[in-house]
């Protein structure tokens, strides 16, 4: 009932305005560029750049590739991590700090270092793996997604009573698989979805590994357009930003429910 509302401090105004300016100007510039046709004359505004993007075969090819890669990464990650984290929470709680520590390893072995190791280790691997994005790249991306998957799923599992649910399910006669799919999974749904959206953002934006391993994903295409075309790159950049934005928004909406971790930092840098 006491709705005391003191006035906003003047310094707060200053910092917030400066922050807003810094963040919004580049976005505006991108939009401005995307609506220009060429340097001289024509002030504004044309949608021809967007048209160029939509009619570009490479665009659709690479975005499809990245998207499918993302889905593949998400599926493999979930299959790999969900049962593991479930089991750790249920039976092996002492392993949890070990896995949590492992989740910090990608901080010490960032993509640029990891790709060097991967390329060296799998140098002699068969072509269907080493030469295919769905093989080499996907397995690397699963590792990239691992910390975010872990923290999100872990928070999800911590928010439900794993023991009670499992015991209740078993006392009613269910097998392990039934318990996992019918009882546990629905309850960590929001955590799993949040982690999935984050992974989507990661894969759609990952450049380092794809670049060094020479695969043609969407970010690679983006860089190519950056280098070769001027203004169409603006349309493409804005599109890329919107994709990230959509993924993060979905994450936030899904994450509102209990058990999902808040937004994390996972994009290409």
């Amino acid at each position, binding site marked *: 009932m006491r709705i005391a509302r003191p006035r906003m401090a003047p310094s707060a105004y200053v910092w917030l305005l400066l*922050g807003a300016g810094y963040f919004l100007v580049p976005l505006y510039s991108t939009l401005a560029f995307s609506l220009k046709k060429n340097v001289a004359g024509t002030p504004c505004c044309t949608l021809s750049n967007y048209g160029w993007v939509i009619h570009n075969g490479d665009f659709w090819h690479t975005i499809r590739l990245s998207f499918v890669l993302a889905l593949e990464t998400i599926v493999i990650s979930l299959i790999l991590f969900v049962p593991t984290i479930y089991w750790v929470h249920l039976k092996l709680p002492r392993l949890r700090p070990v896995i949590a520590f492992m989740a910090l390893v990608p901080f010490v072995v960032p993509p640029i270092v990891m790709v060097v190791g991967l390329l060296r280790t799998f140098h002699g691997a068969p072509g269907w793996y080493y030469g295919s994005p769905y093989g080499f790249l996907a397995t690397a991306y699963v590792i990239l997604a691992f910390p975010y998957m872990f923290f999100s799923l872990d928070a999800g599992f911590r928010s439900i009573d794993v023991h009670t649910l499992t015991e209740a399910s078993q006392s009613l006669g269910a097998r392990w698989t039934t318990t996992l799919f019918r009882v546990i999974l629905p309850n960590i749904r929001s955590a799993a979805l949040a982690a999935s959206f984050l992974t989507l953002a990661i894969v759609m*934006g990952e450049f380092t590994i794809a670049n060094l391993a020479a695969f043609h994903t969407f970010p690679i295409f983006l860089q190519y357009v950056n280098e070769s075309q001027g203004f169409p790159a603006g349309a493409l950049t804005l599109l890329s930003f919107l994709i990230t934005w959509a993924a993060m928004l979905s994450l936030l909406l899904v994450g509102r429910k209990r058990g999902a971790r808040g937004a994390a930092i996972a994009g290409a840098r």
Partner: protein
Amino acid sequence: MVTLPFFAYTIAFLFVPAASVMIGAFQDKANHATFSNIRLLFDHPYIDAYWGSIRISLVTAVAGALFGMLIAYAAIREGTPRWIRSVLTTFSGVAANFGGIPLAFAFIATLGPLGVVTTWFRNAGYDYSVRWPHFQLFSERGVELAYMYFQLPLMILVIAPALDGLKREWREAAANLGAKQWQFWRHVGIPVLMPSFLGAFILLFGNSFAAYATAYSLNQGQNIVPILIGAYYTGNVLDNPHIAQALAFGMFVVLALMMVIYIPLQRRAARWAK
């Protein structure tokens, strides 16, 4: 055991590659053990790249930590409407992931030779590329400016919970006991925030140190380590793969050092969060 696939996977795709980098760093072209690669790291241009990376990382970590904290505090403190905080957090979540290639283009569109801001200044009669030849988007300062775009949001997201933890009762109790604003900050506010602040600083440093895509797209030449590593694979600059591995090993050492400092700091911060 259920956890076997997980461990097998991480060993195969994380630990083994990481180890292979370590090992490769100490091998020569004939795969014999040697320190020569490591020794080479201390020569130009490699040592310059390390200094470049460290410089940029320090600058963006300090600037990101300071300004990020000021912005976050402005949004969270009493008196600021609640919606500003939500907007800031949401936007930070998105902006933190808007790095790499798209970010580089956005900055080129803003501060590049044909950039929106550059043109504004030029139309106003002020061509800063002449006045400030050091400031060029495709220079160290430019890269730092671009890096802030994901460093600031990272700081905001990380420090917000710590700022929330600054209980209003502390400020009032301090005032009640006679303290002025600055005395509160000096004796209570800053000491309580320090572990979180330092932890966030380390996070920002590591984040910047490992960054590759943005610098690549801003055509950084070879003054930071990730670009140098990439050059081996995308260009033909280095001819000895073990140098690239040694460079990667060097990065690993720097980052591991950061982690060693980070973990106890986190524990400290959590202790006072009660």
